């Protein structure tokens, strides 16, 4: 009867169990490596747990089979009978466990996929966010760079204009719509003599002439700008300045005027120089004419005077004809004095120049005139410098200057007053001034006082040549003459007039200095 030996099956069972245990643990090792390599990968996690179940199952089953063979073949049937249900039970349990892990795998996988999809979306969104953040950062950096660059440019520009504003020698100002100065540069404050806080000063109040102010306001309102407007500006100390003004209105976005800005150039010095130049030219031409006239008149006048004196010899001194000829002679002599004055004004008369002490010349003049001045209740105040350099000039002509100025002062003080005569010396030369406390000189005739034959005296009381002659003599001596009215130290009490001061400067001629022909 054919029977089947079970030894091969037993050998396969024994060795297969051992090999299966080894292989199951190898699988467990690889699954563990996988799970460690990518811990967040659910599939590797599942395979790891599956391999644990498989290893446990292989171990349980393999050991069970090996132990069964060993126990049964060593005649320990009873022991195996006790162990058999335990081995079978654990095998069953581990098979169910492995099956359960496998069955629930898809649920985990779905969850993992959903999580992974969300994670990928999140990663994508994060990447986009990072890209956006990067772009934003770049833009921000660019913006910061631009802001920095523009701030620097703005700062440089501000500095440039601030320097221009502060260092300009012209007046630069800003006003609000009511004309109150909101900002003005240092030169402007100095030129306009502003001592009060500038925002309490209206620019309109600086106009000396109402017409100029009206024109300024009208042009700003109608045209929006003012160009080269000449304004006379009255300063806080009462002095005036001539300003050449250009200004523009400042408007808001609705075109409504909110203020104005302007630049003013101080033209006072230029105006003075121009006036002096014009005056000088005028005096030069007048002098030239006067010299011509004097020369032409002088000769026939000499003949008239000569023949008059010859005729006088032919008549008895008590006769009517002699008396008439005396009148003719007197008037002819008066004409000659006028002609002589004209020649002195036009510097045509001869001079004998020596070193002259002005203090002494003034004293000589005062010794003659002071008595008369006293009669007219005029007090002379001497304010002489102790040590005064001499001047090189004609003493007689210099004496004439003082006589003319003192006469004019006396005329201006019909009710009495004071004459202050001062001398001093500095690098520019020797200065002397004659100040009176009289009626002063009106502004409208200031430019004409040195014109020949211009006088405010009544007819017959003056020829109008006194100041012209003074001017001519000063010019001949290389000096300058100026007038100030009201006088700088006019009496504020009001008991006397504003007065006037004549300033004369002559070149100093210190002892030992060589004489120059062109002086």
């Amino acid at each position, binding site marked *: 009867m054919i029977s089947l*030996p*079970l030894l091969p099956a037993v050998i*396969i069972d024994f060795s*297969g169990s051992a090999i299966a245990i080894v292989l199951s643990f190898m699988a467990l090792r690889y*699954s563990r490596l996988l799970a460690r390599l990518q811990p967040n990968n659910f599939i590797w996690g599942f395979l790891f747990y599956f391999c644990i179940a498989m290893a446990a199952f292989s171990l349980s089953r393999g050991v069970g089979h090996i132990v069964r063979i060993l126990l049964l073949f060593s005649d320990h049937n009873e022991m195996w009978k006790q162990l058999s249900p335990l081995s079978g039970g654990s095998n069953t349990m581990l*098979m169910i466990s492995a099956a359960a892990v496998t069955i629930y795998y898809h649920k985990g996988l779905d969850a993992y996929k959903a999580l992974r999809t969300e994670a990928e979306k999140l990663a994508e969104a994060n990447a986009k966010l990072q890209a956006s953040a990067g772009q934003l950062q770049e833009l921000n950096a660019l913006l910061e760079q631009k802001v920095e660059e523009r701030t620097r440019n703005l700062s440089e520009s501000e500095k440039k204009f601030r320097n221009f504003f502060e260092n300009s020698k012209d007046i630069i100002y800003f006003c609000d719509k009511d004309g109150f100065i909101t900002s003005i540069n240092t030169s402007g404050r100095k030129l306009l003599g502003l001592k009060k806080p500038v925002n309490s000063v209206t620019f309109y109040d600086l106009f000396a002439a109402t017409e100029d102010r009206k024109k300024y306001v009208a042009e700003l309102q109608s045209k929006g700008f003012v160009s080269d407007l000449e304004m006379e500006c009255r300063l806080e100390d009462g002095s005036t300045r001539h300003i050449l003004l250009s200004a523009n209105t400042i408007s808001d976005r609705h075109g409504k005027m909110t203020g104005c800005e302007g630049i003013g150039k101080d033209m006072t010095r230029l105006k003075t120089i121009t006036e002096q130049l014009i005056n000088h030219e005028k005096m030069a031409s007048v002098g030239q004419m006067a010299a011509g006239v004097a020369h032409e008149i002088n000769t026939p006048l000499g003949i008239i005077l000569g023949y008059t004196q010859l005729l006088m010899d032919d008549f008895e001194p008590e006769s009517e004809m002699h008396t008439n000829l005396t009148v003719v002679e007197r008037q002819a002599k008066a004409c000659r004095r006028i002609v002589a004055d004209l020649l002195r004004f036009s510097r045509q008369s001869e001079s004998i120049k020596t070193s002259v002490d002005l203090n002494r010349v003034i004293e000589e003049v005062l010794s003659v005139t002071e008595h008369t001045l006293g009669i007219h209740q005029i007090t002379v105040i001497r304010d002489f410098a102790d040590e005064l350099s001499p001047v090189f000039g004609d003493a007689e002509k210099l004496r004439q200057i003082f006589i003319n100025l003192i006469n004019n002062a006396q005329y201006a003080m019909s009710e009495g007053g004071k004459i202050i005569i001062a001398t001093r010396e500095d690098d520019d030369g020797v200065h002397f001034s004659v100040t009176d406390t009289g009626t002063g000189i009106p502004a409208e005739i200031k430019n004409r006082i040195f014109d020949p034959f211009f006088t405010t005296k009544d007819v017959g009381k003056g020829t109008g040549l006194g100041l012209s002659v003074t001017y001519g003599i000063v010019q001949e001596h290389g000096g300058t003459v100026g007038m100030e009215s009201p006088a700088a130290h006019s009496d504020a009490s009001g008991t006397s007039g504003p007065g006037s001061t004549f300033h004369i400067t002559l070149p100093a001629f210190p002892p030992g200095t060589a004489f120059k022909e062109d002086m």
Partner: protein
Amino acid sequence: MASKKIREIVIAVLVLLVTTTDSAWALQSHGAPEGVYVHQIAHLLFAGALIYLYWHTRRTPTLAGRGWKYLQTFCIIFACWNIVALAGHEAFSFLSAEDFIDKNSWNERIAGPLNFTKVLYFITKMDHLLFVPAMLALVISLRTLYADAAREEQK
């Protein structure tokens, strides 16, 4: 309201069970064949789970590659092993002590005359011829997957 009613019903049922039954049914005794049945059912469950894993990995596009092919091979072989084991257990249940000669010795044999059950038992007794290759396929599969993953990580 509904939860309150359910709670009342549950309490009423519990009270009835405790107070009105003649004998307690809290525990049920298990006979000897129950363990065999459970074991056989476990084999079926395990085989079904492996076939499911095979099917799922085949239809999932992201689980493609050589490693997954080996895993699918493992699933098929191991599912087959489960069926073989189940068949072996069933065949053994039809055999008696007289069907074996020199039982539990190195000379143990299946006594003749041979029939289907005896031959089936003899063949299924060598189930490790499936078990070991299946485990080998699992090892190769995991090694391949690990190598691929490591290569991917290195990138």
